[in-house]
């Protein structure tokens, strides 16, 4: 295509430019916003509204003000769920992010005949639906047929075969957490890999000239530049932990007792099993507000990477 040089009137162009810019911006945002306003805003508003009601979900709602919230904060299940998701969020950030960085960097740095296909494999980590992950998780930790207990039996390691991974209050949380880490680390790995690959060439060239070796390079140059992506991953980890439902529910239904209950499980239980839809909505609101707070904390007061 031939670009012609146009002669224009500076003031009019500025106005047109501004208008064009505004139109472009609106056009770009409009489709997403439309989708969300149509399909998510009404549910979100409903959730807030119902959190102040006693509702069975079948109609006949009754306004009860903050009663749902009050009852929640007194409820042992809710408090346990809250503690669990916050602990979960903390530990997933602490474990998944460094692990993901380690793997992502190694895969991009140590390029040899073995690690190249590894890359392709790591992308598959997200393929399993959560129902199947839960089943396999149950299988690994199952008391009679499970891998770990069986291993203990084979080698005569009584300490291993006596561990009740899913039934002991102390261990259940960590067993489910282990399975979740396995399932959810996939995305951080491939995201970081993509970000590392995207690093401008100058970084590498400059480092090369300075004779910076591999892991020093990772520590002093890559990491500071990956702060922003890592922050995003931290936000995603946190929100994911706050919403967590599938894995703990399918592996232990929140048990034994309240040992693996999460806010998500409480929500499902209250809404779909106990028919306390108002209380479930209150939990939903709390999840929402906590996510909002965390996101604002992470995203405020930082300079975007230029």
């Amino acid at each position: 295509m031939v670009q012609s040089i146009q002669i224009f009137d500076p003031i009019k162009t500025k106005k047109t430019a501004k208008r064009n810019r505004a139109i472009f911006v609106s056009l770009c945002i409009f489709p997403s916003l439309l989708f969300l306003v149509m399909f998510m805003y009404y549910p979100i508003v409903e959730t807030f509204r119902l959190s102040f009601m006693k509702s069975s979900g079948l109609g006949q709602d009754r306004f009860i003000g903050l009663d749902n919230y009050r009852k929640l904060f007194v409820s042992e299940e809710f408090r346990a769920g809250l503690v669990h998701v916050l602990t979960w969020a903390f530990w997933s950030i602490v474990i998944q992010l460094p692990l993901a960085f380690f793997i992502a960097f190694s895969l991009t740095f140590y390029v040899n005949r073995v690690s190249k296909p590894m890359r392709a494999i790591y992308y598959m980590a997200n393929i399993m639906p959560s129902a199947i992950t839960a089943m396999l998780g149950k299988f690994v930790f199952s008391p009679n047929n499970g891998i770990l207990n069986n291993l203990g039996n084979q080698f005569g390691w009584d300490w291993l075969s006596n561990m009740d991974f899913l039934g002991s209050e102390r261990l259940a949380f960590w067993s489910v957490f282990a399975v979740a880490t396995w399932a959810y680390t996939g995305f951080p790995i491939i995201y970081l890999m993509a970000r590392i690959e995207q690093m401008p060439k100058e970084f590498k060239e400059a480092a090369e000239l300075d004779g910076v070796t591999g892991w020093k390079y990772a520590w002093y140059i890559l990491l500071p530049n990956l702060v922003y992506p890592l922050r995003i991953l931290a936000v995603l980890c946190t929100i994911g932990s706050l919403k967590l439902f599938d894995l703990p529910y399918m592996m232990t239904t929140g048990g034994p007792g309240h040992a693996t209950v999460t806010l998500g499980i409480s929500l499902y239980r209250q809404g779909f099993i106990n028919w306390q839809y108002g209380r479930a909505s209150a939990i939903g609101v709390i999840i929402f507000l906590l996510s909002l707070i965390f996101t604002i904390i992470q995203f405020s007061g930082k300079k975007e990477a230029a």
Partner: protein
Amino acid sequence: MKKFTLVCLALVLVPLMAFAQGQSDTAAKESGPVTLTIWGRDIPDTAADHIYVHDLIEGFQKANPDIKLEYIPLGDPGLADKTKITMAAGVDQLPEIVQSWGGSVMGGYADAGRLLDLTSELASIPGSKAASDAMSWKGKTYGVAPFFAVAGIFLNEDIFARNGLKAPTTIVEMEAVCDTLLAKGIQPFACGAKDKWPALAMYMYLVNRYGGNAFDRAQARTLSFADDAFVNAAKTYQMWVKKGYFGTKPLGEAYGDAQQQMAIGKAAMMVTGSWMCSQFSNKEFTDQKIGFYAFPVVTGGVGKVTDVMGMTDIGFFATKNAEAKKDAVVRFFKYAMSVEACASEPGRICAVPGVPAKAELTGMASKVFAASQSVQFWWDQDLPPAVTSPLNDTIQSFFLPSSDVASSLKAFEELVIDEMGPVKK
């Protein structure tokens, strides 16, 4: 540019195709014979567990060529979830018939006006009273329950014979049996406490045997759930767990694990519902010989051996959406409750008189049911939904070695007070 046009094309075509397909399907449904949509739990194939439904659908359509059945299997959490959400949105999207366990969940839908009252039409169908009570709420009947399940003890006859044990008829005998089994390194009870609800079966019986109709009174709010009847039963339960009657890892054992333990002879007894009869008599599932017995009594206690805990095994109710097709629905229910349809079911206890039990194990279970004089509906189907999962949580807590059963029950009572009102003096 080419990629861009392709993308735009896809953006337009895909939704159009999807929309068109959806429309054509709904159009096809409206013409033709009367169609009844049924939401069920199991896949209608010829596996032992599912053959009743399979034969029911085929048999009914053969006998009634003017009615077409569209049966959609949704599985266990799927059916409940989808029903709940569709009910929440009103009556229009509901199918005509939904498979259900009746009880308080069905009652909730009835109270919200979503169900079709068929009391007069179904009154003439012969069947056990317990079964039709299960599908009724506040005096009106909304469906039928061709199969009814009762809770009892499944026990491994081979293990018992090998160790010179007899099926226990009193609690003291049962404890002795457990001690013997423990000494031989066999797990006395398989329970499945990890899934919470399986532990309820034994507890219901313990409360009944020690406290008689304590549950009825607690439900009617003339007794507290923290009363001695409940606490003592809980203490016994907890003591048994501590003794090791439920194995070394009772809380790690899921319901499926428990079934497996029974199936391979690693556990000797299992207190659960008679729906397991078809599995436990299926040669592909287990090679052990398993029998079914009524739960033992306490010598000199209140509960009788003829007090049984039961619930619907297979039941159906009709939704308000079926009003226009009432006749077809009634015909379907009548057929579902017929001897002809029920004859193919190998494992479940039939609530219809005159249907012979196909397996020996089922025969034993049917005998227990036939001998019963008072049937208490399974608690977590009887109490309002708001307290059922806290109930199961409370009972699972008895399995925790450190928990104080009295305070767990007290906490549960407080929840019940919230939902159902305080105890009336």
